[in-house]
């Protein structure tokens, strides 16, 4: 299949790069929040559904459950789209929280205590949050890859394996205090990059 004409290849590349930065996806989700249009939804689905499923599999759930929870998450994207506010969170962040909550609710058979997305609508904007969400995912990925390995490790164990501080402490055989200070350092480093890049 790789003997396509070169012109076609270029077209494909152009099509694929049209929406490659996180801010474009956020714009698209914002559009969906104002206008529930299936064409927009399908684009978001194609991009996010395979990633959401990958995330759920990394949490340790089996294929069929991951597929089911992925579909539930993507349904929630449609149902809750009107609550999305581009200036508060990037599309990937918002969809991450939906996938996280779906997975936790399923694993624990209990709702994850939320600080209610509704409050986004109620609260007047105190600060302008634009800056942090406009930092491209490329940049952030780079920042994460630059973290010392032992700091990146505790982030991955938290986000992808759902391990609590004490769980990580047992696994790695290090004191609870060290787990916390590694997470603290990693997070503060990333947040500093956010601020400085604005």
């Amino acid at each position, binding site marked *: 299949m790789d003997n396509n004409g070169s012109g076609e290849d270029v077209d494909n590349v152009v099509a694929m790069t049209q929406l490659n930065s*996180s801010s474009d996806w956020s714009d698209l989700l914002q559009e969906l929040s104002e206008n529930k249009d*299936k064409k927009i939804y399908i684009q978001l*689905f194609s991009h996010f*559904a*395979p*990633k959401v499923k*990958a*995330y759920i*599999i*990394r949490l340790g759930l089996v294929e069929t459950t*991951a*597929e089911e929870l992925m*579909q539930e998450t993507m*349904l929630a994207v*449609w*149902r809750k789209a*009107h609550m999305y506010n581009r200036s508060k*969170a990037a*599309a*990937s*962040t*918002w969809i*991450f*929280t939906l996938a*996280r*909550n779906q*997975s*936790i609710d399923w694993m*624990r058979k*209990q709702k*994850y*205590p*939320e*600080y*209610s997305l509704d409050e986004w*609508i*109620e609260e007047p904007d105190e*600060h302008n*949050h634009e800056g942090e969400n406009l930092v491209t*995912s490329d940049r*952030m*990925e780079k920042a994460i890859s630059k973290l010392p390995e032992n700091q990146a490790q505790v*982030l991955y164990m*938290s*986000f992808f*394996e*759902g391990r*609590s*501080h*004490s769980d990580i402490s047992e696994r790695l055989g290090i*004191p*609870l*205090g060290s787990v*916390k*200070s590694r*997470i*603290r350092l*990693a*997070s503060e480093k990333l947040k500093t990059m*956010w601020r400085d890049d604005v």
Partner: protein
Amino acid sequence: MNIKHHLDEATLVSYAAGSMSQAMALVVACHISICPSCRERVSQSEAIGGILLDSLDEASISDDALDQVLACLDQEPEIDIEMIRTSKQHQPSSDLIPRPLQDCIGNSFEDIEWKRIVPGIYYYDLPFKTEKGGASRLMRIAPGKAMLPHSHDGNELTLILQGSFSDEMGRFTAGDIADLDSEIEHQPLVDSDEDCICLIATDAPLKFSTLLGKLVQPMTGF
């Protein structure tokens, strides 16, 4: 509300990652719902999750996944977005009880079936016991009562909902959170003339009973 004591960065990350027990997450959600500065910080921690999600290699999804989801969308009732926006705007909420806790206990501390441990000290267990370790509990402590000095093996979160207490870390009033780990030893004393009501969660159940044991000790000693 003048909040002086906030959540530890590591606690916020754990909450954002969804890697914290239900019991602890409830306390975090309660503080965040009344503290704009921690809300801002947690949204940044969640953004780390967003970036990590975006960085994942795509998993293969079933061929008819999109069709199945689209079929469900067709059965969704039409939602009037404007109506939702305006109806959410002026929902009254209790000053004392943060909304995530209201979901568990309702609107008033008076309606709770407090259990007495000893005179002046009451508790109420929240239904988060199935967790592989976590426990959360409301405590109601009369003025002048103190806990024995204690430390913890795991994490312990205490959110003050009413009244105040002081310990080595300072003075804690409504809205403040004491986010402690094993390195800190403290002896909280209820230091104003009203009952202090707080929401406590630990990620290690044994420690929680130890804490209570210690709390009871000075009273039974009399």
